[in-house]
C-alpha cells in the first residue's frame, strides 16, 4: 500500500462564514471534497502536536505570496479569522491522484488563529495557534478605570 497525504485549509470567521478553501495536493485544479470546492494553493503545513507538555502546540503554515494569499492573510490577521487545517491520508496508487478519494482517512485536524506572521523569499510563514500563551492573557481580564469607578476615593 502506498501512502500520500493531502492537506485542506479553510479560513473562516467566528460566526462560521468561510472565506477561503485551499488544498495542496491536486495541482492546479479545483477539487470537490466535503460538499465544497477547494482551490489549489501550494502551501505546506507542519505537523500537529497535542498534549499538555511543551509549548502551545501550534503549527507552521507556509504559503506562496500571491495576491490572493496576501489579501487573505491580511484580512485574517485584522479580523482574527480562524484557520482549520485537515490532513488526509490515502493510497495514490489505488485511489488515483485526480480527485480526493471518498475513503481517504482523516489523520489530524488543527484549528488556530495567526499568532505571528512573516514574509520572506516571496513566501508567507504563519504561526497558527491560540493567543493564550504567547500573548499571556490575564485573569481576571478587566481592571478598574475612571470610566468604571470614577476618580476613586481615599480613606
Amino acid at each position: 500500500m502506498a501512502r500520500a497525504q493531502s492537506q485542506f485549509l479553510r479560513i473562516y470567521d467566528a460566526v462560521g462564514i468561510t472565506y477561503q478553501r485551499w488544498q495542496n495536493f491536486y495541482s492546479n485544479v479545483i477539487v470537490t471534497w466535503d460538499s465544497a470546492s477547494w482551490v489549489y494553493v501550494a502551501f505546506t503545513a507542519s505537523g500537529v502536536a497535542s498534549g499538555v507538555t511543551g509549548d502551545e502546540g501550534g503549527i507552521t503554515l507556509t504559503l506562496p505570496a500571491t495576491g490572493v494569499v496576501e489579501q487573505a492573510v491580511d484580512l485574517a490577521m485584522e479580523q482574527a479569522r480562524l484557520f482549520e487545517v485537515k490532513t488526509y491520508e490515502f493510497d495514490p496508487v489505488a485511489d488515483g491522484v485526480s480527485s480526493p478519494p471518498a475513503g481517504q482517512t482523516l489523520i489530524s485536524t488543527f484549528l488556530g488563529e495567526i499568532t505571528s506572521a512573516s514574509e520572506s523569499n516571496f513566501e508567507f510563514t504563519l504561526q497558527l495557534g491560540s493567543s493564550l500563551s504567547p500573548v499571556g492573557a490575564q485573569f481576571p481580564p478587566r481592571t478598574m478605570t475612571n470610566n468604571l469607578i470614577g476618580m476613586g476615593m481615599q480613606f
Partner: protein
Amino acid sequence: MGSYYEKSPEFLRRQQERRERIEDYFANGGVAASGATGRGSTISVGSIAPSAAPPAAVEVQPPSDSGPAQGALGELCGRQQAAVIGQAVPIVFARRVGDRGGVFITPPATDARYENDASNELTAKYHLILGDGPMGSVQVRDVYQCTCRVGSFTQTYNRRAGDWDPGNFLVEREGYTLQNVPDYCGSKGTGEGMTTFSYENTYPDGSGDWALEVQVFIREGRTVTRLADDTSGPSSNFADLFKLAMETSAKLPADMIDTTRLQTAALFLDANELYCDIAIKETQNLDDFIASNAPYFLLRETRVNGKRGLRPLLPIDGAYAISTDPVPWEFEFNEDFIIPGSLQVDYTPLEQRKPKLMVAMWRQQPGDTFGIIRTAEVGYAKDRSSGDVEQHDMSLFCTHELHAVRAMAYKRARRKWSTHTISWSCRPEVYNRILEEGDIVRVTYERNASDGSTTTHDYLYELDQIEKTSTGEIAFQATHFPVDAEGRSLVALTVAQAEAQGLSYEGSIRTGIDCDENSSTDTSVPAEVGQAVESGNPPAPPPAPPPLPPSPPAPGGDDPPPEPPPGGYPPPPVPPAPIPTPPDDPFDPCEPICTSGSICGEVGEPAPTCPAGTTQVGIITAHQPDGDQTCVICEDCEPPDDPSCPPLNGVGVWNLSALAYDKGGTRFRYYAIEIPDPSYNGSGQLVETRIVQDNESVTAGDVLDWTPNTDTDTFFSVSDRSVSGKTGISYWDEDNCPISASTLAGRVELSRWTDGVRTTFLKNLGTSLLDVDCDINNAQELLTLTYIGPGQIRDWWSTSALPGGISNGVLTSLTPIPAPDLPGPS
C-alpha cells in the same frame, strides 16, 4: 466491558463508536505486518506487569476538635478599603450548596457620602464593587459591617448602585464633635459590566464604626451557563470557570473551546464533589492559573487539534465517578508498530519517589463568617514517620474536605505508583485518528539481553502528547499508568478509597456576638436601585461640601475657640454682590472661575438660603445688640475650560500657612507664605519672608515663642492671595514623645476672609495629612498641615487649633502680606 457503563448511554455510545472504528479498520485489512492487531481490551490477570497488590488505603489524619482555627473574626473588622484605579475587577465565582461553598468578600469602595443630622448622627453610604459580570442576589442576612449584620443595601448590575451622589456633607453641630471622615469621597463611575453594591448605615455621635469594612457573603457568584446542566446561574465548577476564562480573558472563538471535553470534565467534578468557590482579586497569567489549579480538581488541560479543554486525570465510569474497575486500553503497541531505536524509558528520580506526607489547606466556609482554614493530612502509614511534608494551599477555592483529601490522595498515589515515563515513534496507522492524549495504551516489547535471555516490558500508559509530523511519523510521550493484578488503576483506587474525616468546627466560631440589627434568617433581597452614568465623559466632580458655622466651645476642652477680634467682626456687605476676581490675581487656567457673594438675613431671623445654581460656602454670624444676624456666602463656580487641566475633584488642594497673633491682645501681625506652584497635591515652598505691620523680620523656619492665653489671645492668620502653605509647631509634653500621626488627627479651625468677611471652617485633619517627625525636638513637633477644602486663590486664610485637635495651638514660619490689602480685626 463492565456494568459501570450502564449508567451513561452517551458514554457507552462514544466508547462503542471507537471500538467499532477499530474493528472496521482491522476488518478492512488494517493489520500490522506481523499480524499483531493491537486492538484494545480489558486486561486479564497476569498479562501485564501489575505494579502491586491492591493498595492499602491512604490515611487521613483526623483534625483536633479542641482548638478550632482562630483569628478569622479579627479580619472582619479592618478599615474599609478604597478601590484603586488599575486594580483588577474581581471575579467572584461561587455557589453555596448545603453547608459548603460560597465566599466571603470585602468589596472595595469606589466612592462615599457622609452626612450628619442635628444630633450629629452620621450617615455613611458606600458604593462598592462586588465583582465582574452579573452575580446572584445578596440576601439581607449576608451583609456585615465588622462582625455585625447591620445597615441596608441595594445591588445592581451594569450600572451604578443606589441613587445618591458622593461627597462629604458633614455640618458642624453645636455641642458635638465633627467626625473625621474622608474628604476625598470619589465620584461616580458607570459600573459597566460589573455587579455594584450600595451600602448605607447610620452611626451615633462619636462612633467610629463608619470606617469599618463592609463584608458580603456571596452565596451565588458570577452567573454563567453551567456546562453540567446547561442552565444559567452561579457555579462552583472549575470547568465553568475555565470556559469563562477562555471566553473573557483569552477571547478564544467558540470553535477553539473544546466544549465536549469541558462538559465531561464538569460532570466529573460534580460527580466527585470537587468544587471551586473563589474570589479572584489579583491579576495573574491565565495559563499559569489553569496549569497550577487544574490538578487540584483532578483535571488536566488538553489541547487537541488546537482546541482547549479539560479532561479527568482518572478513569471514569458512566456516571462520571472515579472508576475502580479494570481499565481498558485503547491500543497496544509492540515491536510491529514501534520504530526501532525510538523507544526510551525514563525512570522517576529518587527525590520524587521518597515517602512524603501530603497536607492540604482548605477552607471550611460557614455561612456567617470568614472561612476557617483547615488542613487535611493524607499519606500512607510510612509517610507520617518520614518527616517529609508537602503542603498545598487549596484554601482559596476548596470548601469541601473530601475535595482536599482526594486531591492529596491523587498526588500521593501518583507519586508512589507511577514509576516512569516513556516515549516512542511509530509509522502512521489506525491510531492516527483514534488516539488522543489522555488515552490509555499498552506497550509491550521484548528485551534481548547480551546473555541471550529475554524479558518482556508490558505496561499500561497514559498518553501525554501525540505529535503528528508532516512526514507522517507519529511521536508519543506517555506516563506509566499503574494497575493492580486485576487491571484496576492503583491511583484511582487510592483516590476513591480516601475518606474525609467530616469533623466540622461550625457552631463554635461565632460566639459572643450580639450586635446584629438584621436577622440572621432574613433571606430577603432588597429592591434593586441604580442609576445610569453616562460613559465616555470625565467623571463629574462631587459637589463642594457646605461650609461650617463657627465652632462652639466644646465641653471640657482645654483650648478656647477663637474669639471675635476686638470690636467684633466687620459687618457683612449689604447688599450682596458678586465679588469679581481681582485683576492682579495670578491667572491659573486650571482654577475654576468662581464668583461669590453674601446674603444676609434680618437680625434675629434664621439664615437665608442661597439662590438656585449657587452653593453655600460659608455662614457668618454677627452679634448685634438686638440679636444675631446671619449671612450666608453663596458661590457659583465654572470649571476650567482648558481640557488639559488635571481633575479638580471639586475642590482644590492647597497648603495652608501663616499665623498671626498678638500676645497682649492689642496688636496683630499678619504673615503669609507664598507658594509658587500651587499644585494640587504638592506642598509649596516658602519663597520669601516679609513683615507687614512692624519691621520685625521673620524667616522661614523661625519658631515663634508663644503660649496661648485663653483670656486675651486671639490668633488667626492671613495668607497671600496666592495659595499658601502652612508649617506649624505644636507643643507637646516631651515625656509623651514620641507621638504618632494618629494621635495628631484632630481639627483645625480655618478662617477665610473675603473682602473683610470672615468665614470659619472646621477642618478635620486626617492622619495621612500630617507629617510628623518626633525627633526634631523633644519638646516641639513640626507639623505640616494640608488643607483640603473649598476655596479660591484670592481667599485669605487663618488657622487655629481646637479642643480635641492639635493641642496648644499652632505656630508657623511666617510671611507677611502686603499691608494695604490686609483684612482682619481693627
